[in-house]
């Protein structure tokens, strides 16, 4: 803002009518208002001001502004409106989805993709494990297999031994005094007698522990 005091000084240098007249001259390019014309007829100062203003306007017209073709203004207007209103036709047609709809849609897409990825990963893992197990024998598995074979062998042996034991038990007679086993009928003690050492006796006891009927 300018200094109001200076403005008053300048303003006070003009008579009120002149100030009014020159204000109208500035506001009205045609200078044809009745009030202005009456004042200009009697005031040389304001008439000089009006003439100078008119002459200055003529100076500006003699040095015209170089305007571009109308197409340049049209292009500029289009560019401005593109910035101001980017998609004028899209507003009434476009229906904005709600927040929940957009969230659900996003989750659905994300979940379906994730589930597919997880299923594929699980499938690959299963195939990898299967191929690994079948191609490389596991020592632990091997041990287990060997143990299984032993167990099967032992079972078969046990069955054979059980048969032998059952056959022998029919003939066995336990004598605690001399740790000897007497085969044959009780009434025929002298018919056959085997002497057994301690290891054989322990093995025989172990065989008899499970199935011994006595």
């Amino acid at each position, binding site marked *: *803002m*300018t200094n*109001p005091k200076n*403005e*008053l000084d*300048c*303003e006070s240098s003009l008579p009120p009518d002149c*100030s009014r007249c*020159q*204000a109208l001259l*500035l*506001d*009205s*390019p045609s200078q044809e208002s009745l009030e202005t014309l009456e004042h200009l007829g009697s005031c040389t100062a304001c008439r000089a*001001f009006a*003439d*100078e*203003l008119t*002459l*200055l*306007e*003529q*100076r*500006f017209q*003699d*040095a*015209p*502004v*170089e*305007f*571009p073709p109308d197409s*340049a*203004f049209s292009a*500029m*207007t289009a*560019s*401005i*409106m593109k*910035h*101001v*209103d980017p998609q*004028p036709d899209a507003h009434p047609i476009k229906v904005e989805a709600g927040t929940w709809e957009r969230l659900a849609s996003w989750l659905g897409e994300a979940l379906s993709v994730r589930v597919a990825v997880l299923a594929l990963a699980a499938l690959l893992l299963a195939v990898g494990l299967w191929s690994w197990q079948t191609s490389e024998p596991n020592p632990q598995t091997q041990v287990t297999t060997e143990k299984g074979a032993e167990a099967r062998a032992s079972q078969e042996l046990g069955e054979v031994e059980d048969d032998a034991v059952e056959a022998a038990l029919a003939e066995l007679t336990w004598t605690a005094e001399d740790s000897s086993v007497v085969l044959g009928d009780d009434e025929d003690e002298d018919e056959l007698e085997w002497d057994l050492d301690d290891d054989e006796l322990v093995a025989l006891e172990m065989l008899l522990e499970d199935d011994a009927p006595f």
Partner: protein
Amino acid sequence: MSCLPNTPEDSVRAAVRAVRAGDRAAFRVLVETYQHPLYGVLFRYLKNRDDCLDVTQRAFVRAFERLEDLTDDGAFKPWLFRIAINLALSQIRSSQRGREEDLDSIPEPSREAQQEELVAQKQRSKALYEALETLSPTQKKVILLKLEGGLNAKEIAASADLSEGAVRVHVHNAIKRLRAHLDPESGSIETES
């Protein structure tokens, strides 16, 4: 609409209100109303067609973006011109153009004119631009807003942030200085006839 605008000012005021209410397409009315006078004022500053178009466009875009800062719907015109002149001055400062170097690159007049008239017109243009450069920034702004922009005293006052009395004083001083520069012998401006 029951009541159509009667004057250009009413149209502008209605357009500003419409834009404020969300009708962005109404901004076209403002652009088409003011693009030519705005370009005319800017041309006296920038003296370059491309720069003028660029600054004119930027002024409208900035006016749209800051429309909420405009307190009076009827004051759009001086507000827009103020934005534009500030942009032009900023561009002149940043590019170091618009003064001495551009006095030699004053635009050529229209090609339809005669060769003699071309020369005379270029001389008159050069004299006018040199005379304008003798004015103070405020005097230049006031006289250009008046003669090229077509703003009245009240609008010039709003645009230049002055009182209406100060506008008249600056116009008087600008006329005196231009007269002294353009026609120092006679003490008055003479037409080229």
